[in-house]
């Protein structure tokens, strides 16, 4: 039976615990869960956690703020210490952040070896269908240690035996023999190393059978423990301050539900005075 916490909340909390160890978190475009997780990590650490680089404004900031999607550029400017130009961030700042940068990436596909595809998959007629692009994945794979990925809906189409196109190979890009990839999904948490790939923990409401069916055969799931849950204070912080509008839920909506959810979110954000910085209440 599911407790008083939903999948989005659990994923955000799990992701935030990993991001909290980074010096800088890069939010990435169109990545609501990563954004909420980064802001939660920042709030839990009472501002002593990672600085946030937000591509919606290409800013670096430590401001306490709530998550935002339709007003993300304005939100990104809250407390920003600098607005970067894109070439400066991409070619000058990012290479300096090796081992200090954290970002959860949502791949189109990830395979049992941790290789990432964000570019293309074949359609029913075996023609390549293009998606987002190469972006900065090769660069990120080299500096993000561990490399983080997430899947809001894990199944055998996105967690695969072999990706159809390798955009980056984070284990190969990292010279450290103990290189790791952490994957957080709606079912479990996985760890990829050079030795093997295994489920570290399985969410309390997910059966091992369901996990096995949704996971490539080469991935070890049998000895996964049960994923721990956040405490009540952390959940309250997430729900009331970090993400009061439920931006985290957008990534779990598809088709018409997603369109409806996006319009509601836009209306909710527009109806409030700009709520980017929640300076009126200090995090714990």
């Amino acid at each position: 039976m599911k407790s008083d916490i939903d999948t989005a909340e659990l994923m955000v909390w799990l992701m935030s615990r990993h991001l909290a160890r980074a010096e800088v978190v890069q939010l990435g475009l169109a990545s609501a869960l990563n954004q909420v997780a980064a802001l939660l990590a920042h709030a839990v650490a009472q501002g002593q956690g990672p600085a946030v680089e937000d591509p919606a404004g290409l800013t670096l900031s430590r401001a306490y703020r709530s998550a935002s999607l339709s007003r993300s550029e304005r939100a990104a400017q809250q407390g920003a210490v600098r607005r970067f130009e894109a070439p400066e961030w991409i070619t000058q700042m990012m290479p300096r952040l090796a081992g200090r940068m954290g970002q959860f990436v949502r791949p189109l596909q990830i395979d049992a070896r941790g290789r990432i595809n964000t570019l293309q998959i074949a359609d029913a007629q075996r023609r390549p269908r293009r998606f987002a692009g190469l972006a900065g994945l090769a660069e990120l794979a080299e500096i993000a240690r561990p490399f983080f990925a997430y899947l809001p809906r894990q199944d055998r189409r996105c967690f695969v035996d072999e990706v159809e196109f390798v955009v980056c190979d984070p284990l190969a890009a990292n010279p450290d023999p103990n290189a790791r990839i952490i994957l957080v999904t709606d079912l479990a948490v996985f760890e990829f190393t050079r030795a093997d790939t295994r489920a570290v923990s399985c969410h309390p409401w997910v059966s091992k059978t369901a996990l096995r069916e949704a996971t490539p055969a080469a991935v070890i799931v049998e000895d996964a423990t049960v994923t721990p849950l956040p405490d009540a204070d952390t959940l309250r912080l997430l729900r009331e301050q970090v993400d009061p509008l439920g931006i985290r839920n957008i990534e779990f909506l598809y088709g018409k539900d997603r369109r409806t959810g996006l319009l509601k979110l836009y209306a909710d954000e527009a109806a409030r005075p700009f709520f980017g910085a929640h300076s009126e209440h200090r995090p714990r």
Partner: protein
Amino acid sequence: MATPGAKLATLPEAAALAAGASRIVLGGWSFSRRPLRMAMEWVIRGLRFEELVVMTGGLETDLLLAAGVARRVRSFYLGMEALGMGPGLKAGAEVVEETETSLVLGLNAAVEGVSFLPLPKHHGEALSRMRPELKAVRCPYSGAEYWAIPPIPVDVAYIHGWRADPRGNVVLGGHKGADRLLALAARRVVVTCEELVDDIAATGLEADLTEPLVDKVVHLPGGARPGGCLPGYEPDWPALLEYVGLERGAVTEWAKRGIRMGMG
């Protein structure tokens, strides 16, 4: 010496500079400061050019591909983020793939007038599979291998900013994107702006683009709608979502209607 107002142009005059061009670049980033009114003008005039270059390609890119204005696009990211993909990208398009770094290097090579700039070999493995024309080179000092990224010279850069003066000094406002680099890589630069002021220096703001770089200035309030242009306005998601739901053949009418309604 040019008179202060000599760079002021009408929208049709500025739009026409793109006709038949080999390569056009559009400024802005994500939903911020995209020259959407200019893109709509090209669509309703049936203008054509060869290649569109964008850092991130969103609504403006989708519209130009759907309407057949641009024959191909060069970018490292295409899509409307949380909103999905529009009819132009859904239909499939010719794409020259780039990574964030390779695109910056190619534009910088054009700015610096060099025949290539080196991309570390391991950063370009996926890129080289999509771009088999890329050549590998070896560093004469260290022996390290690189991909030689060729220059990306641009005919005209179109950039939408917040404030400009008639001499061509421009304050971008909001996200800076890569617009200064895009302008430097272009043979000609057209700026459309929300506010036209007599003299940027008198506003106390520092210009992001300066007058030697800028050839034409068009006063075009709302020129980034239905995207955003801070500090003035933010993206109009209902309008963006309406676009996402269009059939490809409906985009020209959407652009005409948008102009009539003052959207862009």
